[in-house]
């Protein structure tokens, strides 16, 4: 068995990014889209921490903490908007919300 190295983390990160991106693009439920965005953000986090560890630079971990904070705020705002949206439109399906077009 190979020891777990940077490449593994990057592979995991890439997998999460891919899953998250596909989730954002394909799922219709906005809740799930938001969850997919979380996956993308966490993929980034893993990436940051992996390089932080490999390069012995604490900046990556600090940045990861910021990203987590940002993700929390984004999720809170996103869900708030989602509730307001649901009250008005009675739907959380992304493809049913298409008023912003010419």
């Amino acid at each position, binding site marked *: 068995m190979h020891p777990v190295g940077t490449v593994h983390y990057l592979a995991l990160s890439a997998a999460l990014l891919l899953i998250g*991106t596909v989730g*954002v*693009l*394909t799922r219709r439920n906005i809740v799930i*889209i938001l969850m997919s965005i979380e996956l993308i953000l966490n993929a980034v986090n893993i990436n940051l921490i992996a390089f932080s560890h490999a390069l012995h630079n604490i900046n990556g971990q600090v940045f990861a903490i910021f990203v987590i904070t940002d993700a929390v705020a984004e999720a809170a705002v996103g869900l708030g908007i989602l509730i307001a949206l649901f009250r008005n439109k009675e739907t959380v399906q*992304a*493809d049913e*919300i*298409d*008023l*912003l*077009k*010419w």
Partner: protein
Amino acid sequence: MNFLDQIWLIPLFPLAGAALMLLFGKLLDPQPPSEVAVASGVEPVVAEHGHGGGHAHAPAHPGADHGAHDAGHGHRSSPLKFLIKLIGPGMVLVSFIFSVGAVWQLSGLANRSHQVILYTWLAGMPFHMANGHLATFSADWGFLLDPLSSVMILVVTGIGFLIHVYATGYMEHDTGFYRFFGYFNLFIFFMLMLVLANNYALLFVGWEGVGLCSYLLIGFYFHKKSAGDAGKKAFIVNRVGDAGFILGMLLMLSVLGSVRFTDVNAALRSGQFPVETAGFGVLSAMSLLMFIGATGKSAQFPLYVWLPDAMEGPTPVSALIHAATMVTAGVYMVARSSALYELTPNTASVVAGIGAFTAILAATIALVQNDIKRVLAYSTVSQLGYMFLALGVGAYWVAVFHLFTHAFFKALLFLCSGSVIHAMGGEQDMRHMGALKNKIPITHWTMWVGSVAIAGIPGLAGFFSKDEILWQTYSSPKGSQLLWFIGLATAALTAFYMWRLMNMTFYGQSRVRPEVAAHVHESPAAMTVPLVILAIGSVVAGWLGTPKAWTIFGEAWRGFPNWLQPVFASAAVEAAKEGEHSASTEWILMGLSVAIAIIGISLARYLYCIKTEIPGRIQARCRPLHTVLYNKWYVDEIYDFLFVNGLGKGGGSVLGAFDRNIVDGGVNGAGWLTRASARISMWWDKWIVDGAVRFTAFFVKMLSYPVCILQTGRVQAYAFFVVVGFLAFLGYYVAR
């Protein structure tokens, strides 16, 4: 008290009086409703106006020219009305007292000239004079008291006061008592401004002001059409003259750079301008234009036509404004400009010629008029002609002297005629008078004095001044024997028509209408006392300037010329040339003029008192001449034809056509052109400008269609494009 520095107060007293009357007078003089109704409802009586002499006479009525006051006894004079009687003449009296004080102090000054400048009225306007120099125009509220203006203010306030007193009696039963005195005081104010002004611009203010008051007072009975017309005529005819005056004044400003008398005279006497003996230079034009102004105001040919019609006003107005003071404004102005006329002998001879012509023209008309006031009106025109004759021959002091004496006896004659009219209950036609001598004795005797004075009998005022004019006309280098002869003939005519008037009015058979005869009565004291004072003045005024030939009196009795001597620099010249003619010539001429006056008086007595049938026969024999004279040489008709109908209406229709076709055409054409250009502009805007804008928008819109397709409104689609784009870039970089 130093009156000299307070001369600016002199005009202010009458102004205060006028303000009181015109602003608050209505409260002081409430009219009972019945009288108002009479005044406005009934055509009042004034005999014979208009042209050709209508003979209609309505019965006397209160509210007419003087109001028959037998009928007016119902209206008691109120204490408030007494206040008007007090303020009106009182203000003029105060002015007179101030004037006397000021003149008294003036006589103590070495140069007999005092100028008070209150402040600048039209301030510093720089302009280029005709010679290219830069000058600053300014006019002051400034007052100049010198011998000439002192004579004028004494005449205006002194005689003005007497006529004011007279008017308190004469206008007693008239409506608009306060209005009358308001205008009267206002007139005195403007007249004093005219004669006290220290520059031509301020003089012109007074000049126009007296014109305004003249207009208001001629049209005092404004409900009567003839009075309104006469007022308008006076105003309009005067405007013609005023145009000349304004042009003359502007020319003066452009040539001399100032309108202040002292500056102008100093410039003209400096020798900078040569005497314009030959040709017609700029100074001649200036003096001629100013003389045109004088012909308007002082009723000289060709602008005299308004004065006889001005008799529509109440008789005190005729006496004060249209005989004694205002009409002499032109004489005053020319005398004031004597330095200018000295330099322009050509204009001076025009002045003399016009004066002589006017004198004899008006005298011939006066011969045959039947309206008592009209005779006096033409007499005034004629006497003013004498004054201009004197001015024209360079005898300025004599003109002022005649102005002075004329003010006395002509005011007297007019007031006497007013008293006669008052006695006759509004009758003005002398054919319905006669033998009034004993019925109105005071009026008769005072008028007798006035008539003797104007006829030129030695010892009375008219003799001295008129004889001096004739002598100067004869002896002056600018005069001529022809002018002298015209003057002498006019003197004969004057004596004749005045005594024709006297005989028709006071002597001979009574032709008074029976319904009038019962009411004939002497006027109240308010009217007769001024008459007596003026009669005394008509006797003594002339003794201020006895003829030079009367050596026994010496220089002491020639106070008038000596007093005026500082004003007229030409006096020295005049004295020198007088020496060329001997005293015996003067005696002969004097004898001639006296003889001719006595002949005129006797002939009038003979024709109109003793052999009263002869005038009718002469009239029948010389029918055409009489008709021409009676119709005043048809001058009014000629003016009507030439100016009123010819230029006014004919020119009006030409101007109308011009206005309709050319002016309106121009306006309409401009309008059409604007519309047409607006249409073109609109088309351009709509199709070209808007088209360009719209095309740009359309073009952009067309281009935007493919992009629009991408905008679905679905967020995931956009996310998809982002991913695709990202992958594309990624692919591009990886592949490279």
